[in-house]
């Protein structure tokens, strides 16, 4: 039996055992997200379509899947969705600039030997693809953090309906501070787990620190980690602000109409 299928089956059984219906939906969401990635791949293969635009659409779809499909459409998920999209747009501007300046796109000299059978002049703009990859690797963490803030903020507003907008915003920020350490840690370990082979390679071939830091692959990985960290941090004030704006305004108008 195929190892991946077996792992997927185990994950599915565990998720439905522990999460019930919602668990099954969460498992199915992984498949939907996989579908989105395949679509992204198709569009990026067309040199006439800007990969950044494709990525923005993909992020919106992924946001819908992670927030509206796993949970449901309600105030919490709507504000989290809006916050994720705004964060993504701000982040992508920054990432495109950095990717263009630092030239971390494409493949490094360490990889190029095994790619010698391929034609590299394929017309796809790899700088933009590199920026897209950084955004895509962070989008899961961004929607997660947005949801983790907007959901307890909704609870706070529910228990204290007359809370002021500023107090609610402060509450959101303080929730955000608590999850900050763990979300940056999650990304950090996920990336370093993936780069373990690379790190051993650098050490084995006794690269000097100067060579490691300036090599395309390592600097690309570092910039990805930092940008991911910037993304999950930035989403905290943005979500707190949007949720506070939305909830308190809504609260006031419903008070006056009732």
């Amino acid at each position, binding site marked *: 039996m195929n190892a991946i299928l077996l792992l997927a089956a185990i994950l599915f059984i565990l998720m439905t055992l522990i999460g019930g219906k919602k668990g099954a939906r969460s498992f199915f969401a992984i498949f939907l997200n996989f579908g989105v990635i395949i679509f992204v791949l198709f569009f990026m293969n067309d040199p006439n379509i800007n990969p950044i635009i494709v990525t923005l659409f993909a992020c919106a779809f992924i946001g819908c899947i992670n927030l509206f499909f796993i949970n449901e459409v309600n105030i919490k998920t709507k504000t989290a969705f809006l916050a994720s999209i705004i964060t993504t747009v701000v982040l992508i501007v920054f990432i495109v600039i950095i990717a263009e300046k630092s030239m971390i796109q494409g493949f490094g000299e360490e990889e190029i030997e095994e790619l010698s059978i391929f034609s590299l002049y394929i017309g796809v703009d790899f700088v933009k693809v590199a920026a897209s990859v950084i955004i895509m690797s962070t989008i899961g963490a961004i929607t*997660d953090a947005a949801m983790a803030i907007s959901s307890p903020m909704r609870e706070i507003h529910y228990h204290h309906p007359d809370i002021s907008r500023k107090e609610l915003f402060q509450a959101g920020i303080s929730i955000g501070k608590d999850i900050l350490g763990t979300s940056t840690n999650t990304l950090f370990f996920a990336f370093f787990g993936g780069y*373990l082979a690379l790190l051993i390679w650098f050490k084995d071939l006794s690269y000097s620190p100067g060579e490691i830091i300036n090599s395309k692959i390592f600097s690309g990985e570092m910039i990805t980690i930092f940008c991911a960290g910037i993304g999950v941090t930035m989403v905290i004030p943005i979500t707190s602000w949007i949720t506070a704006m939305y909830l308190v305004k809504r609260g006031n108008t419903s008070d006056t109409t009732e």
Partner: protein
Amino acid sequence: MKNIPLKKFYLYIILASCIASSALFVQNNDSFYERTIAEVKEVQTHHSEEVKDIYDNEDRLYEQRIVAEITNGEEKGQQIQLSNQYSKSKAYDYEIQTGQKLFVSIEEKKEGAGELSGDILDLKRDHYILLTGWIFILILLFVGKKQGLFSIISLAVNAVLLSYALDVYLKNPEISLLLICSAAVILFTVTSLLLVNGFNEKTYAAIIATLAATFLSLLITYLVIRLTGGKGLKYEELQFITRPYQMVFLAGLFIGSLGAVMDVAITMSSSLFSLYEKNNSIPVQALKRSGMEVGKDIMGTMTNILFFAYISGSIPMLILYIKNDSPLGFSLSMNLSLELARALAGGIGIVITIPIGLYTTIYFINRKRAQR
């Protein structure tokens, strides 16, 4: 300035001088490098042509003539002539612009020739890493204040630990990489959770749950790979391999899921403890129900974090495969099998942390109750 307490004011000054001095250092650290560095003074694109490969992909090639000034070593201050070729898609090449710093190799200077000539080796990128690094740190401090500082410290400590663990492994290859990683994982878990959450029962419960869940998920993955004989896993896609590949893969998977498992464990234990603190006599049954609810809420988004962090990195390679007329199924199985296995194994780790975290936390709560 009068609103800012003196202590904070000093902190700002220290931070600003750190940024300024590190920026100054990377701008002027050329003499610390052994490889020759040259700063680009003049760029001229003198030729460009359309190219078409055998798969009908259209691209454009450009040639540049570059004059640069060497900034370190014996030839410091001399001009050097370089040439560069790049394509519009820039998969393996880059467009040189004035002001950039390059690593170059110098060819033997011919008698009578006025200027040096050489080849471009690579780009100097250290200042971009520094720039993004500082932006990351500043945003983290600005939003997270004290907690932000602790997260930075915990990230730095973990990076040093990881590098040290790898050094130990490389010096003692007879010790299994998994064994070293297990020791490292215990250290990672203890330091990060203590730094972020402090010394209390909440943290102890999370540490025990994290360790139990990571080792259990590693065991499950290992058994699956043994049972299926690793069928479907294309180890040849593992790049940069200098050591036994299966060990490196398992160790990477082990460390990769650790952060997510820690995240779930601390979420479980802190939400259960906050319920207990609000109501000391809350029945165990109610704790179990609420804990499972919290677990269901975070399980979906957490598995997706790992999924995207792993899968997205393969996109450039997939594009290259598909553009070179490889069939989609072949390209996906060649490039994604290990990433998918990682994401799925990480997902298994996340999901089993939910009941493990629940029961360890309840154990700690019951112990606290008995002490009262």
